[in-house]
């Protein structure tokens, strides 16, 4: 009995902080999402109307929400594999016994992660300028016509994916590198004695041994990429033709630009629901693979 009370006392500070700064706001947001809290309600709380699920219903009928969801899924579906592939390749190269100046390259490849999004986004905006950007100049050398990277609705999202992948791959690379270093060298030795090629070593030793790390990195990256916001906010402001509006960007606009906190909260909960389902599916796939 006494130990239980002691345990609660030790837990209390963290529980109170979590309750006040996390649980209460979440409950508050849930309640908000059932009302039409807006500018008029801010002026006088009597102007607040309880609308039940009308915010959710209206969102599901709003083309922009589906478009934003489409853009976000596009970003996740292309961005996550690309970013993880870049991380894995970089980690493998750094881990290779042939690599020289490892510390330098590790730092250099990790550098984009610690830069400020806004500062590098401005640089990228220049790099991908249609007329004067280095990207189009480089394409010109190999005879490809200039691409309107940030002005063409079809190219803006790929540009943003490229930017996000470049900005974030270093972080996963460090985690994967740690995972690679944890694989016992004896396994490779044994495989070499058995005459396994480099590819088969990778396929049958590296990948299975790295699988738990890869899954964790995958889940973290997916949930991070679903929250796409800063990149379109800084580079394209959601344009051109709203082709880079993500779900979170839409929520920000609704909530903090137009002060429609009711519908903004509804967007937040829908996004939470989607991320919850996707992450749960990934965990389930992992579990079934472990069993198999």
């Amino acid at each position, binding site marked *: 009995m006494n130990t239980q009370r002691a345990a609660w006392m030790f837990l209390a500070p*963290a529980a109170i902080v979590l309750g006040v700064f996390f649980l209460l706001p979440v409950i508050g947001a849930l309640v908000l999402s059932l009302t*039409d809290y807006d*500018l*008029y309600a*801010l*002026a006088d709380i009597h*102007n607040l109307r309880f609308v039940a699920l009308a915010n959710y219903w209206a969102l599901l009928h709003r083309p922009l929400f589906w478009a934003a969801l489409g853009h976000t899924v596009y970003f996740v579906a292309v961005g996550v594999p690309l970013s993880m592939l870049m991380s894995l390749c970089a980690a493998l190269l750094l881990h290779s016994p042939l690599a020289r100046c490892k510390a330098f390259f590790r730092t250099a490849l990790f550098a984009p992660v610690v830069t400020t999004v806004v500062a590098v986004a401005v640089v990228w905006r220049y790099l991908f*300028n249609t007329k004067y950007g280095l990207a189009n100049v480089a394409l010109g050398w190999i005879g490809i016509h200039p691409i309107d990277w*940030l*002005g063409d609705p079809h190219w803006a999202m790929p540009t943003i994916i490229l930017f996000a992948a470049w900005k974030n791959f270093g972080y996963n690379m460090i985690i994967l590198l740690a995972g690679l270093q944890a694989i016992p060298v004896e396994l490779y030795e044994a495989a070499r004695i058995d005459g396994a090629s480099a590819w088969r070593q990778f396929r049958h030793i590296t990948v299975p041994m790295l699988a738990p790390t890869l899954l964790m990195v995958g889940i973290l990256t997916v949930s991070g990429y679903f929250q796409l916001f800063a990149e379109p906010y800084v580079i394209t402001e959601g344009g051109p033709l709203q082709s880079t509006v993500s779900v979170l960007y839409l929520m920000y606009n609704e909530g903090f630009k137009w002060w429609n906190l009711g519908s903004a909260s509804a967007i937040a909960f829908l996004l939470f629901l989607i991320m919850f389902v996707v992450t749960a599916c990934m965990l389930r796939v992992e579990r079934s693979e472990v069993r198999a």
Partner: protein
Amino acid sequence: MSLACWRIVVAVLIYACLVACTQHSGPNTLTFWTIGREGEAITQLLPEFERENPNIHVVLQQLPLSAAHQKLLTAFAGDSTPDMTQLGNTWLPEFVALGALEPLQARVANTKSIQPGDYFPSIWATNVYDGALYGVPWYIDTRLLFYRSDMLKAAGFDAPPRDWNEWRRMLAALSHPARGQYGILLPTNEYDQLTSLALQQPDPLLRDGGRYGNFESTGFKRALRFYVDTFRLHQAPPITNVEAGNPWVEFGRGVYAFYFSGPWNISEFRKRLPASAEGTWATAPLPGTDGEGAALAGGSSLVIFRTSTHKDAAWTLIEYLSRPDVQGRFYDLLGDMPPRRSSWSQGSLLRDAKAQAFREQLERVKPTPPVPEWEQIVNEMQLVAAQAVAGDLTIDQAAAEIDRRADRILEKRRWMLDHARPTTSAPP
């Protein structure tokens, strides 16, 4: 756990800031928020004010334009508004609806130095809601044409356009898309240009007292058609201002013959173009549908918050900033145009030929509809217009879509007007 630790650290920091802020404001300390570039220029006007009024100390906080709107709303929600602020006149209706602003007509009536009749009437009117005055215009903003007079002359036009037909002919003569030359730059993510054209029409932009959109009117469709045709005829490139990059230099190079923008660009052009180019460009009032046209009445006002405890000191500062000589210096510092006629009859404003087109147009400006939702509606208007420019929608489809979106945004306002409670402040 580390997340929880961070939260405690943040909470402590916020508390420390709050304590520091409250200690900072003494009995005669006036907090004044400025938005954008005005904040830098005003630091040069304040020393004289503090010399004249030694008992008032002004604490200035400069907000960037992109964050100002939400910062002001958040301050209102959190009961931490300053004593006074600069407020764009499209944001004024929101803060009036919130009941955040102090009515000022009694103070104006007791002040000799601020004469309502001396102000351009449309600009003064944007500060009046239901007969009550909530702000004093500080500077004025309207959109008109900057043009390359040398290029027009070379193409056989001696004067800037007077109406849309003439304008269209000039745009056609000066556009060579194959060479990367266009008649005009109209960034597809800026709504001021289309709004200016729409305000020239006799039809109001909203109908039934701001209950519904009126974008399917003949007038708005005429404006939208002119706007969209400019792109379809390749007289303007369909790009946003993000891609336009450095329009000043491109205007100087002759990439654009016309540039549709506001007063601050007079000084921008002088700063960015060589002095020898001064004679190659000029400004002209916006051409109307058939002859002299109206234009957008924008700008900022000075307002006092209802919760302020230094209203008299704030009013003293407003009086100081409204003096014609101070407004003249403000123009010299920044290029912000004064809203009073007497400020225009002195100093460099009187002498500058490029400012005179603005002076002429200011007599004809028209305000946007005074509803709190206007900014949101006009954003949607521009998004749909950009779709029409891209060829995804016809003019009729675009007009209907803008009306549909405007009506959705105005739903709460209709409910408010129909359920107006006598005790609370009704929206304007």
